[in-house]
């Protein structure tokens, strides 16, 4: 039923057993029903224990879980009348980044984010959420439009990183990212970013130069992927576990470092075991922040955003 991660094996085994017993219990045996309840309790406990102390590497796996809710799911549940807007007006439409206007809990907003895709067809269409320069230039266009119409900007970040390819380099991947950061920092409307899964380096910060950056409990945000870091500093990708630990890429560590503002709890067993609850929880926090920020003047919002980034780096981890 679920896609289980390697560290979830004991849980998977238990749930498999429960499933088997349920089949048997169709014959109406009371003892089996009792056994099922017992096992279910055990499975839940195990799940709770496992998820209460996920390592940085395990969180990286949860953050990349194929069943984790993606951009599309958030839009479907939180945004009415979502109207996607396509193209950078210069070269192409890049579906790795989706953006558009819509109504979020009564407020007209601009929403931009990476879409990873949930099946093979969608993954290919959205290039696994790895944007090319066109994607970032579309984002800039939409940011500028939001600014002009006074629409708050909500970004949902979920990417392994910007796409590394020949064409992407030729068309200025660096410049596209740099400029996205610049445009976002200059906005005179509320900018709220949510890291819903993977916050991969430059590809993520391009959409996360916000007034408030919030992260889901088991999402990650990092300067480089654990694998990439391991292959450079440990000279072997096998040390990804150690690298994940060293990079301090979990929502909890980043909150301590003062890099993000808030952590949103995920349901037991991660967002993929309760997409609706997760998305509603994100919506609640975004709404609260939006209401607070909407009262503020545009220049104040811009200055606040600046000050927030300028103030970073005062706190280390003990």
């Amino acid at each position: 039923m679920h896609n289980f991660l390697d560290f979830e094996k004991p849980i998977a085994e238990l749930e498999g057993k429960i499933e088997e017993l349920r089949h048997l219990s169709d014959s109406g045996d009371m003892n089996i029903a009792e056994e099922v309840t017992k096992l279910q309790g055990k499975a839940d406990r195990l799940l709770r224990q496992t998820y209460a102390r996920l390592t940085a590497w395990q969180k990286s796996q949860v953050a990349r879980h194929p069943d984790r809710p993606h951009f599309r799911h958030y839009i479907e549940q939180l945004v009415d009348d979502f109207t996607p807007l396509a193209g950078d007006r210069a070269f192409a439409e890049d579906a790795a980044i989706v953006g558009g206007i819509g109504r979020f809990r009564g407020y007209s907003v601009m929403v931009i984010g990476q879409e990873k895709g949930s099946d093979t067809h969608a993954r290919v269409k959205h290039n696994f959420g790895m944007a090319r320069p066109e994607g970032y230039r579309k984002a800039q266009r939409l940011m500028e439009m939001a600014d002009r119409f006074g629409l708050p900007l909500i970004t949902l970040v979920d990417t392994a990183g910007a796409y590394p390819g020949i064409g992407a380099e030729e068309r200025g991947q660096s410049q596209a990212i740099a400029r996205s950061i610049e445009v976002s920092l200059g906005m005179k409307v509320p900018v709220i970013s949510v890291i819903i899964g993977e916050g991969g380096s430059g590809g993520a910060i391009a959409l996360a130069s916000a007034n408030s950056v919030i992260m889901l409990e088991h999402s990650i945000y990092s300067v480089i992927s654990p694998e990439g870091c391991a292959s450079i500093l440990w000279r072997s990708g096998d040390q990804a576990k150690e690298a994940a630990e060293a990079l301090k890429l979990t929502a909890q560590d980043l909150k301590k470092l003062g890099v993000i503002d808030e952590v949103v709890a995920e349901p037991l067993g991660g967002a993929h075991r309760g997409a609706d609850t997760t998305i509603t929880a994100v919506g609640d926090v975004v709404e609260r922040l939006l209401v607070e920020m909407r009262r503020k003047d545009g220049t104040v919002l811009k200055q606040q955003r600046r000050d927030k980034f300028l103030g970073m780096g005062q706190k280390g981890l003990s």
Partner: protein
Amino acid sequence: MNWIANFVRPKIRALVNKPDVPDNLWEKCPSCEQMVFHRELDANLRVCPHCNHHLRISARQRLEWLFDDGEFKVIELPETLADPLKFRDRKRYTDRLKEAQAKNEDKEAIVVAHGEIGGSSVVLAAFNFSFMGGSMGMAVGEGLLAAARLAVLQDAALIVVPASGGARMQEGILSLMQMPRSVIAVDLVKEAGLPYIVLLSDPTTGGVSASFAMLGDIAIAEPGATIGFAGKRVIEETIRETLPEGFQRSEYLLDHGMVDMVVPRQELKVTLGRVLNLLSVKSPSAEIVPLPGTEDIAVEVEAEAEVEAETSQETAENGKGEPEDGKTE
């Protein structure tokens, strides 16, 4: 004692230590592999006289060769948290830092100085590639911010010369945060109406290229420099194709519209001076022409200005002469 110190000790030292053989008088060009005499190489601004390859240079050399008469003032950079993540890979980050500091003249990967180029006031921030690959962590970010603030204060142009592999992994997310922070630095300068010029040198990649380095009003690249976002190996592994000739080199970027010009090292100073002059001196050289019918006022203003100049000169001199708590009234 004197005899021991002056005579015996050097003798022993001479026996123990090998005599100082200058083994670095000749350098091999990393591109054409020809041997070049070090003085000739330096006289040529470390550009190979055989193949025109631009060798990497230190931040200090950059400052010396760009500022007028090689004169400039280096500013002290703000202290930042050392090792905020307590990072450790095969080595401790603090040890890597110490090593880098031991083999470098400067404490971090960036040096900020001010002076003049072609007569224009300039604040220049130059990277040291030899300091942990010129990687951008908190200290570099602070350095860029300090440079930008100084430029605004002095009404000077900001020139940044990156030579960097990208963000410093050992400072994790805080290095990534230097991307928006450095962009803010750039915007401080731009908002003050001052020129921001980037001189892309070898290499400018990763988080450095994807932030302040690609936002110059004018982007100049040194010949043959590697400039790009993703590393060549990463791209090759992703697309499983060999990369085109000259990929991610300055000339390639020029062809694709990503930089304004590729300028040889020997011509950089003149080019920068000219550009700065064009961006700041906007009309024919200043000459006060009175408006018709206001000649008298103009004369008065001039006279007033003269008086003011005289007084301020006096004050300055008084200031020098008065030792009393250095205050000038």
